[in-house]
């Protein structure tokens, strides 16, 4: 199962939300209202369905960019709805599932059936919104990568894979660049060595983590040649994080 990530999103998201239609399938009126109100504040257009069959009716008439689906529905269950969505309707609309079950239950079956992500109740609206943005970005029309990432005196250009510190170019290898980019994209997250392997390089971890240590060390040295400030923090010897900006 792939790791779920909440990307650190910046202000452009509201614009991206403005034209997206979201179908909310939840039989509890209060929760449905809370979600709809929260999403509308973000700029999404929401339709609320209170049962599986009602959702099918809406789906037959309109297209949606994303579906928020509660599993426990009267009549047609959430899981059956997903099956029919992917099967009969041949739709690849991203689906985020709301579940009252806990993590120890078998979630794999759900993903096999075609859901893209899940949130357990009770949930934070902020988290749901972040996941919606992440799904839309993934599914969306050729979303351009963020043009640049900046942190203190460090600047990364994702189009050219160039990094500069105080204007001086850093000769980073491709792998070093990817690590730095990942850290900058998620400034508050702590990554373990294994995380960097799988997320930055998309490679399976083989039990050898000295490589990462060496790369981090190289990055630090290259930055240090131009700037005394710390950019990568080591946390307790087990993880790395982008250093906090000085207040």
């Amino acid at each position, binding site marked *: 199962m792939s790791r779920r990530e909440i990307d650190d999103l910046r202000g452009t998201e509201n614009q991206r939300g403005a034209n997206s239609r979201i179908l909310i399938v939840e039989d509890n009126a209060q929760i449905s209202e809370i979600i709809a109100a929260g999403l509308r504040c973000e700029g999404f257009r929401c339709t609320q369905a209170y049962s599986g069959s009602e959702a099918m009716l809406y789906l037959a008439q309109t297209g949606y960019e994303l579906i928020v689906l509660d599993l426990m529905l009267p009549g047609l269950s959430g899981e059956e709805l997903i099956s029919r969505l992917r099967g009969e309707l041949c739709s690849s609309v991203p689906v985020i599932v709301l579940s009252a079950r*806990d993590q*120890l239950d078998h979630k794999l079956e759900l993903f096999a059936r075609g859901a893209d992500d899940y949130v357990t109740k009770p949930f934070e609206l902020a988290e749901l919104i972040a996941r919606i943005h992440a799904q839309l970005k993934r599914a969306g029309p050729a979303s351009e990568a963020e043009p640049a990432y900046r942190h203190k005196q460090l600047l990364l250009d994702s189009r050219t894979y160039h990094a500069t510190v105080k204007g001086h170019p850093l000769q980073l290898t491709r792998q070093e660049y990817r690590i730095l980019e990942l850290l900058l994209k998620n400034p508050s997250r*702590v990554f*373990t060595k294994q995380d960097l392997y799988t997320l930055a390089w998309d490679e399976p971890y083989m*039990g*050898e983590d000295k490589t990462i240590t060496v790369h981090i060390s190289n990055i630090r040295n290259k930055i240090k040649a131009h700037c005394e400030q710390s950019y990568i923090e080591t*946390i307790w010897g*087990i*993880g790395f994080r982008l250093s906090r900006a000085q207040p």
Partner: protein
Amino acid sequence: MLAALLIVSLLLVLQTGYGLYYRRQIRDVGRQLDFIGKHDSFKLITTQLQSRELSRLVESCNELLRERRAQNQRFIQKNEEIHETIASLSHDIRTPLAALDGYLQLAERAEPVQERTEPVPERAEQASHRADYVRLARSRIKGMAKLIEELFLYTKLQNPDYRLELSTVDAAELLRHSLVMQLEPIAATGYEPELALPSQALVVGQAHAIERVFGNVLSNYVHHGEGRLTIHCRETESEWEFMFANPLPPGRTIDAERLFQRFYKADPARSEQTSGLGLTIVQSLVQKMKGSVRAEQLDQQFCLWIRWPKKREERV
């Protein structure tokens, strides 16, 4: 000729007499059973007759009656446990509920949100704006949600038929993730944990369950421990062992026997917003994964050992 007739009639009389006595014994047994049944008594059946068949019958009946008595005692004990549980829970849930409602009432009376110039208040005495009370209320809700969730998990784990789906997982990496997830509360203790972990520790288990176990152990340290947390890892022929140690506040003692019991709290006033189920859940989960857990107090240090079986091929 007459003698023979006399003997035969005597034998007949004796036989009939015995027969009648036998029937009376059986009737007596029947009456005792009726009495036991009607009055819910725990007497056992007694009989004077030494006949083999009857003795065996009576013994079988008594075996059933003993079992019935034992079942009854188990039932009473379970009932008591349920009542104890409800009493503990009642306190643990009502307290945050009262605080929750209290904060919301204060929010109703307070001023609406203004421009914030002071730092965000942590305690109720410092709160004065509506938004502050709402925030405090939300944190109580989070506490309650966690408590209730733990209770559900605990109940589920009590079912002996509930099984976890086991596979090979890296317990060391899961521990690192658990540490990272509790970065803030652990860092807030002011002590950096001392870690000696291998890059990999492949065990047979379930990823979420193991993360849960580590999460609860770390939570326990954050809430009850003092000083620096030390985590070491040791490999044996067939298992991986994780040891967690931390100093205890002076004067605090841990009852290692009762530590894993439901609702045990070192603090008798139950003042923390924890369920008291954390370590019980740890024990249940670890056992469901065929591992073992042990705790001990050595001087003023609290030590906890958790073992998981290694991946089959790696065993010597």
